[in-house]
């Protein structure tokens, strides 16, 4: 008996409850942790049948399993799901413990004991529960995001398809209108040339007005065709471009009047951009800066700044300026601020479209009578690559 006690006393140093019973189901050992969590002392417990203190164990299936452990040495486990609350213990923080009980056999000399190790799995169950909850929420979030992404992709495809249809439609209508309109114009001219002396002056005036309207319409059709020429599905062709050289090229192409001064503050270092698109952007913006400036001496200044991952190109003029309420509208198709006969509200929408195709954006700041600055931000990498 002394040897048995000596052996079992080792369990006193274990931090979780350990109870030993003999083959008659009588408690023979009760460690300190069991006293702490059960609030029953070893003195009170030892010598009593385990069922007296824990009646839940007093059933055939638990008895049979415990006997099986004693007989065969096969360990058994009682988990909280199928065998809950066998030992109504409270852990150190005073909470009712959620237990996993491992029953194993100890053989001392010829005597066999069943050892109950009562492990509190409350904390691990709680952590596991929190982890599973988090995992479930994350999975749901990912699922939702994927659904939103798919929906967005669907709308983008629809939008792209509608845009392409619209472009094709505009191109077709413009193209098909051009020939008959030009025919009407020629016939009206013949009418004036052949019958000028016979027609009343009022009728001649009306025909001349009709010819002017035809010219305006032809210009609008040409502008629409020009706009639809810059299709979004054309690839961005990046190349090393010296912007100063490009600006000079644009200036030469435009035949700038002598009262216009164009300066630029740009390094000679080449930048990687789409040359064709940037040429058109500069052409339209410089042309606008010249056109919409009624001052005698006109100035245009072009600057390039390196801003992290972006190039920022600013084109500043001392022109008529734009009212703040028009900042958004000026990029809308056919929206013209001027009543000039050569203004069809096409130039800036083309600029915005081209900048967008290069993965960039355009903004404007202006003051009436002082001038405007158009700022273009373009990423330093290919939009398709990104």
């Amino acid at each position, binding site marked *: 008996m002394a040897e048995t006690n000596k052996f079992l006393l080792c369990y006193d140093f274990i931090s979780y409850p350990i109870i030993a019973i003999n083959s008659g189901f009588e408690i023979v050992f009760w460690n300190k942790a069991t006293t702490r969590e059960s609030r029953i002392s070893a003195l009170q417990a030892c010598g009593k049948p385990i069922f007296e203190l824990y009646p839940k164990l007093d059933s*055939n*299936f638990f008895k049979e399993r415990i006997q099986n452990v004693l007989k*065969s040495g096969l*360990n058994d*486990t009682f*988990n909280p*799901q*199928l065998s809950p609350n066998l030992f109504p213990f409270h852990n150190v923080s005073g909470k009712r413990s959620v237990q*996993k009980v491992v029953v194993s056999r100890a053989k001392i000399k010829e005597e066999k004991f069943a050892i109950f190790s009562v492990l509190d799995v409350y904390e691990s169950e709680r952590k596991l529960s929190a982890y599973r909850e988090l995992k479930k929420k994350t999975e749901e979030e990912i699922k939702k995001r994927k659904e939103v992404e798919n929906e967005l992709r669907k709308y983008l495809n629809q939008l792209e398809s509608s845009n392409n249809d619209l472009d094709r439609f505009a191109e077709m209508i413009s193209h098909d209108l051009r020939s008959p309109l030009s025919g009407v114009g020629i016939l009206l001219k013949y009418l004036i040339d052949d019958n000028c002396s016979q027609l009343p002056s009022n009728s001649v005036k009306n025909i001349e007005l009709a010819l002017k309207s035809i010219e305006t319409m032809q210009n609008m059709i040409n502008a629409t065709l020009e706009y639809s020429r810059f299709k979004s599905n054309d690839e961005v062709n990046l190349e090393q471009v010296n912007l100063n050289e490009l600006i000079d090229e644009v200036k030469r192409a435009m035949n700038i009047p002598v009262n216009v001064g164009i300066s630029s503050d740009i390094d000679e270092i080449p930048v990687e951009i789409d040359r064709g698109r940037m040429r058109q952007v500069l052409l339209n913006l410089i042309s606008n800066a010249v056109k919409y400036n009624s001052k005698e001496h006109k100035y245009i200044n072009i600057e390039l700044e390196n801003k992290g991952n972006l190039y920022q190109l600013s084109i500043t003029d001392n022109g008529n300026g734009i009212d703040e309420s028009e900042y958004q509208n000026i990029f809308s198709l056919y929206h013209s601020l001027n009543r000039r006969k050569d203004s069809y509200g096409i130039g800036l929408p083309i600029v915005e479209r081209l900048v967008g195709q290069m993965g960039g954006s355009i903004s404007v700041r202006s003051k009436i009578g002082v001038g405007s600055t158009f700022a273009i931000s373009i990423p330093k990498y290919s939009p398709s690559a990104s």
Partner: protein
Amino acid sequence: MIGQEERNDLLREIVNIGVGRAAGILNEMIQKEIVLEVPEVFMLTIDEFKQRLLYMEDLFMSKVTLKFTLGLEGKSEFMLTYENAKKITSVLIGEDLDSSELEIAVEGTINELGNILLNGLMGSFSNILNVELEYEVPAYSVHKLHDFSELSENTSGLIVICNTSFWINDIDFEAKLIIMIKKESINTFTDRLLGV
């Protein structure tokens, strides 16, 4: 010397006794009608076993492993797909299949269920073969089948496979009870089998 058929009959008897005992305990404990059947028992090398289970190697499997030493060295396993493990847990503890509580309960439930079955099986196995074994505490794990590293480490061992069918409240589940004998113990195992 016993033939292959007699050997399989003997193994079937060992398994049926063990599983029958486990079913009795489970019936009483869960208070639900549990029927356990072992329609097939056969013996394979580990290579053959791997070939047979190739079709399920990508499935997540729940298993309870009980290692044994002393008279024989090896381990026994209760193995079923994780989906089946969830279904059984749902039936046994009455949690909804989609509930997060169920996921938490799978480990404890399958661990105890597997423990009862393996104890029944191994009790009968060691009794009938008259071999004394020492056991570790059963451990629960979830793996894909091809991650079972022990299988590749020990390719020359023997495996006794028992395909098991459960009916709990008339719902049918498939599971496997497996005994793997390490190559060092194959001769002892065969001798014991012949000596029965």
